[in-house]
């Protein structure tokens, strides 16, 4: 479902940004490790939340 994702290099960049297979562009607040690097696994969970929410058709 996620076509591309760019994780932030540090907390100043804040967002993980990418696109889904259908072309949807997204920005998700990233989760950071204590050393300031991006926690990619936790950030991926946030992206999955976004996908679940977008799949709620209303």
């Amino acid at each position, binding site marked *: 479902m996620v076509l591309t994702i760019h994780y932030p290099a540090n907390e100043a960049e804040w967002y993980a940004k990418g696109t889904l297979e259908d*072309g949807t562009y997204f*920005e998700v*607040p990233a989760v950071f490790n204590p050393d300031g690097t991006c926690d990619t696994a936790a950030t991926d969970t946030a992206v999955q*939340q976004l996908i679940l929410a977008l799949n*709620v058709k209303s």
Partner: protein
Amino acid sequence: MTGIMCALAGSGGSPYTGSATVTVGSYTDPSVPYTYWGFTTALGGSVAPATWASTGANFTQLAWFDASVDFVSFVVAGVFPNEGWETMTVGGVPFTRTSANYSTNGTNTVWNWFSFSNPYGTTIGATREVVWS
């Protein structure tokens, strides 16, 4: 000062700041399942005015969803950047833009907040003021 400049100055300089009033509707889809409270163009509730601040863009959703993940949803028709406003307040409950998941598919722009309780309440026909600042 041009007309556009006057309009921007009158709204605090951003076309994204303003307010709207949601009259709460609700719908449960047993097949998914999910329940929402608030406004969606497809399922009910209402919002006045129908457009977001000075953008002229129609609201598509102002609602809280009880689904596989619970979330507050703000959706407008059109493509807008993730900037130009800081906080959406629903009935006095603030939602910070930078803590939202933002997405756009070229047709709609979506901001979703997770892990919040329902700011719209569960009383059908009740009203909630939504403010963008």
